[in-house]
């Protein structure tokens, strides 16, 4: 096992820069998820760690050794591919043991490792089948088994659950987490699914346009996003953004959303934002769960307002309500018993203790 370090890593394809100088330190035993939209460079980064892509600039270190020019086979890594990449002419056992056989491990040890991995992944009964005879989920387990038996320094996962249906994906997500808890191998996992990223990762790396937007624990990313991109990418439904500006009125700092709607900021927030120029164009960011039905008791920092709902979506444990604030569509989360109806009025409340304020031009969270 080992730590993985990326130093100013760049990947250029002709005149396109897919990865634009990223720095990343992954600690030993850590489970790091690279997440971002298609084309953000996350898979390319993973493939550069694997050695399947050359790096155009910078350094990649595994266990302290620079591996820029080391071929994949000598990096002591194992990779699980999106489409499994199982050898169709080999049985499950042969697929899993292929790497060990190439390295001339003793037969007894190969058998022991394969049996142990098969037991861990619950595929002992399938050991003599060919990949064609397996379901998608089973194939994914075999692909993981192939990685586990190698006992590598680093596991690399390239969108391993994308080809599975929703239910199986949840199940396999838990399997992957369990496996990592058992083997504790340093893991780099690529996905475009923010739920996968949040549930699996010790730390999440959010990437966009070949750059790292933010690195942090799932909770940090959710509650303290650094940029508008991270704020909107993490969380479902996404964070609401409403154009706003700051104004002083009656000796207090106010957040003005519309001509008719302005909220006094709670003292902590007011102190934080007080130094900002009042002329700046800003965005008010608020997650749906912080925009709920108004409660009868006044709470500090929670400001009520009236809304006319456009659409409601009952989810069972909650109801999502959609309405517009001065032309901007926003989403709130209310109790199913709050009386939300399509086209109906609802007294809402916004929790300004959990608000975010962003610079509209730069997208930076202030």
């Amino acid at each position, binding site marked *: 096992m080992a730590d993985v370090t990326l130093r100013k890593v760049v990947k250029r394809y002709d005149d396109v820069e897919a990865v634009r100088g990223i720095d990343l330190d992954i600690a030993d035993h850590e489970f790091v998820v690279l997440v971002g939209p298609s084309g953000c460079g996350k898979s390319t980064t993973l493939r550069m760690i*694997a050695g*399947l892509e050359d790096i155009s600039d910078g350094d990649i270190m595994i266990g302290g050794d620079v591996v820029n020019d080391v*071929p994949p086979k000598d990096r002591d890594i194992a990779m699980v591919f999106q489409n499994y990449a199982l050898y*169709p002419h080999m049985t499950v056992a042969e697929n899993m043991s292929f790497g060990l056989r190439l390295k001339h491990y003793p037969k007894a040890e190969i058998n022991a490792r394969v049996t142990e991995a098969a037991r861990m992944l619950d595929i002992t009964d399938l050991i003599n089948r060919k990949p064609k005879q397996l379901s998608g989920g089973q194939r994914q387990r075999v692909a993981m088994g192939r990685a586990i038996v190698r006992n590598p320094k680093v596991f690399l996962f390239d969108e391993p659950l994308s080809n599975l249906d929703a239910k199986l994906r949840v199940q396999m997500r838990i399997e992957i987490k369990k496996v990592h808890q058992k083997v504790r191998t340093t893991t780099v996992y690529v996905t475009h699914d923010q739920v996968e990223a949040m549930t699996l990762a010790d730390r999440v790396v959010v990437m966009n346009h070949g750059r790292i937007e933010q690195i942090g624990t799932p909770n940090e990313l959710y509650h303290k996003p650094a940029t508008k991109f991270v704020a909107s990418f993490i969380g479902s439904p996404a964070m609401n953004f409403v154009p706003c500006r700051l104004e002083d009125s009656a000796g207090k700092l106010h957040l003005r959303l519309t001509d008719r709607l302005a909220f006094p900021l709670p003292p902590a927030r007011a102190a934080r934002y007080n130094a900002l120029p009042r002329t700046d164009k800003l965005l008010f960011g608020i997650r749906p769960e912080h925009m709920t039905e108004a409660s009868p008791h006044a709470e500090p920092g929670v400001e009520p307002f009236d809304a006319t709902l456009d659409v409601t979506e009952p989810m069972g444990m909650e109801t999502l309500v959609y309405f517009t604030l001065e032309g901007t569509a926003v989403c709130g989360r209310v109790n199913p018993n709050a009386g939300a109806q399509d086209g109906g009025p609802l007294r809402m409340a916004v929790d300004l203790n959990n608000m975010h304020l962003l610079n509209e031009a730069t997208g930076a969270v202030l």
Partner: protein
Amino acid sequence: MADVVVQQGTVARTATRRRSGLQKALKRKSTAAFLMTLPLILLIACLVLYPALYSVHLATLNKSMARFVGFGNFEFLFKRDTFWLVVRQSCIFAISAVILKALIGFIVAHFVHNVPANKQRKWRGMLLVPWVIPPAMSTLAWLWLFDPSYSAFNYTLSFFGIGPIPWTGDAMWARFSVILVNVWYGAPFFMIMYLAALKSVPEQLYEAAAIDGANWWQRIWYVTLPMMRNIIAITTLFSLIVTFANFDIVRILTAGGPLDHTHIFATWAFRVGIEGSDIPLGASVSLFMVPILAVAAVFILRDVNKRGNEA
């Protein structure tokens, strides 16, 4: 194709039983398909089956084609040394040519596969040329290259102090020459088939193998070859049949000479049947290819069937 019978809820079962039976038969998909392909089946039967059966019939007649002699022609052949020479030469010719074609085709396919996509078409086109030119024409060109007096090969080799080599005059060199020309002509076919097979191997299998620790050679041995096994088997069988039955290259290049040392089944069948005016004996010679090729076909195709559902 499975027989799908369209269910008919209430077919009158008594008086119209015969007619409904016919209707049902026609509504069966396989019946309709059979009827539609019948003209083609009949055409193939006329063009393939009839000549095949006719040659079997011919092989049982005497030289003047007047009397039934049973296996008489075969008994006669088995006693002749030339026949066994032809059997041996046909096997050597076909097997060595097919192995070389497969090997060269595989290597060249790999090179073309690794050529950047925008230049690949040009290379593919150029490398296919030997296979596209009618072999009778190209063999004439080879004949000039091998010519005893004006051989371009010997002229070139003379600069290195080698030769002159009797390309078609010496038995061993003549055998080498016909195999060389056959390989030159047939290798592009293997190349194009293998290239198609190579393109169908998912790139991620190579990546997985690279990460598993396979070197270049191990990737070929454990990934490429197993993934191409069916194509290799079918191409080899097809080529074996065509090479075994080759006529034009040997006929033009050496005409079986020197002293029958390059004759293979087809050229020798022509020699005894047409030139020697013993049609039944010629038919017997060519028929002798059937059991040899049938055995090869059974072995190769059985393997293909076994693996058919793997990938």
